[in-house]
């Protein structure tokens, strides 16, 4: 190992997770998942409903311990939530009684960061996600897109090396979603960040990711690992490129097998 290895490497080895389902029964969500995400890489997870995509994200986030196998971050076993790992949920999950700025500040408050440093960091992040004007507004006064931007800013406050995104923009309309995807790429391009994201959209997966990993229907297993040969920085126009169409075709074919 080199002295300054780039950090933020995720490795899953034979990970299996099951949940109690009624008396004596267990539901197997993931069964033998092997996956490596290299530092700075963007990987999209796609699969039919119930393929355990969100479960897999929770294992990496340290919110769920696997029944079998190991989840490693930079070679160390993940045994709980880690400040180097940031998770953006499907819903914004903002605290409704706090303003946008105060919600973004929340993680820094929990780690008892210095107050002036906190303010500066929050102001910078609000600018990054374009919410300066909404800093003093409550979540109920924000649009869906603004809420999810605030949630993204909140996750970025602790400067995570790994960003986990659980269908973060799925509740938004298509236009807002495309814009936020572009912004996400712009924001994370400046800081080397490993990204593992769950999505339902083949095009979104291809647009964002270096690799698209296809999971099978329950119990979830990796059935395909499709590289995306599309140069960065990417723009929405790239979605019309022949590579995208071909990649989408491959992913869909694997999804078809996965659902079967």
């Amino acid at each position, binding site marked *: 190992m080199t002295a300054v290895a780039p950090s933020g490497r995720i490795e899953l080895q034979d990970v299996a997770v099951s949940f109690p389902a009624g008396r004596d029964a267990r539901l197997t969500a993931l069964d033998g998942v092997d996956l490596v995400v290299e530092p700075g890489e963007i990987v999209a997870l796609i699969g039919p409903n119930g393929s355990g995509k969100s479960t897999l994200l929770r294992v990496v*986030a*340290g*919110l769920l311990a696997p029944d079998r196998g190991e989840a490693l971050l930079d070679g160390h076993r993940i045994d*709980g*939530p880690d*400040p180097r790992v940031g*998770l953006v*949920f499907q*819903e914004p*999950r903002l*605290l*409704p*009684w706090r303003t946008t700025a105060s919600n973004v500040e*929340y*993680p820094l*408050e*929990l*780690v008892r960061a210095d107050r002036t440093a906190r303010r500066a960091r929050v102001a910078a992040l609000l600018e990054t996600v374009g919410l300066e004007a909404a800093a003093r507004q*409550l979540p*109920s006064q924000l649009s869906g897109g603004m809420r999810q931007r605030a949630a993204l800013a909140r996750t970025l406050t*602790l400067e995570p090396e790994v960003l986990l995104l659980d269908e973060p923009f799925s509740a938004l309309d298509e236009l807002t979603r495309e814009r936020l995807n572009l912004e996400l790429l712009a924001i994370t391009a400046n800081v080397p960040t490993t990204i593992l994201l769950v999505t339902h959209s083949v095009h979104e997966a291809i647009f964002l990711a270096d690799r698209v990993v296809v999971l099978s229907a329950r119990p979830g297993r990796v059935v395909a690992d499709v590289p995306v040969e599309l140069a960065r920085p990417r723009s929405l126009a790239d979605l019309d490129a022949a590579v995208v169409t071909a990649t989408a075709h491959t992913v869909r074919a694997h999804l078809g097998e996965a659902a079967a």
Partner: protein
Amino acid sequence: MTALSARASWSGQIPGIAAAAIALAAFVLAWKALVVVAGYPVFVLPPPELVASRFVSAWVDGTIAPHALRTLYEVALGFAIGAGLALVAGYGLARLPLAERLLSPYLVAAQATPILALAPLLALWFGPGLTAKIVICALIVFFPVAIATMVGVRAVDDRLLELARSLRATRWQVVTTLEIPAALPAIFGGLRVGVTLAVVGAIVGEWAGADRGLGLLVNLARGSLFDIPLLFATLLTIALLGIVLYAVVVFVERALVGAR
């Protein structure tokens, strides 16, 4: 403009205070009319102007003030102690299933026993002084606040709790930054009920034996003094005390809960 919207805008133009004044005037007029029409003697139902003048004179000559202060003191202290204990107990009931199973029968039994029946016993145990009244107030406040707290804490969104866990919040941070703010509206529902019950508790306690207090004054005015206008003036004082304390709770609630 339709008739319905015309009516709505008409009622919207009357300020709340004016509406309250009109309602009060109507109540006093109806009272006066009842006395005049039915011809009740003063010792059954004194007319409103007599009660009003007795109310003023009894406050000016210092007949009511020391009793009112004593009752206020009992209510404030009993409410603070009862509500404080209830917040802790309510939290325990919400988060420790065993606590709820073991304790809820006793809680309900204590609540179902009329405070009127307990008051003489408590007077016997604690004597005619302050302690018995404070205990009664605390007892009567405890149940609504504990139940409201339990319901409020249980209703905290699991997704917000998961967010806090992913941010590695400590148990205490979860309580202070998430559970209490989220449960606050429900808790204040309990406090509103509790504060009016606390007034009832103090009066009942004084009724069972006291050297001072509005409950004692009711007894004196009805008995040895046989001053029925004073009895009504005392009842008015009790009602006003309840209204003022309720308004204080609502004021604090507005300041703490605010708009969400």
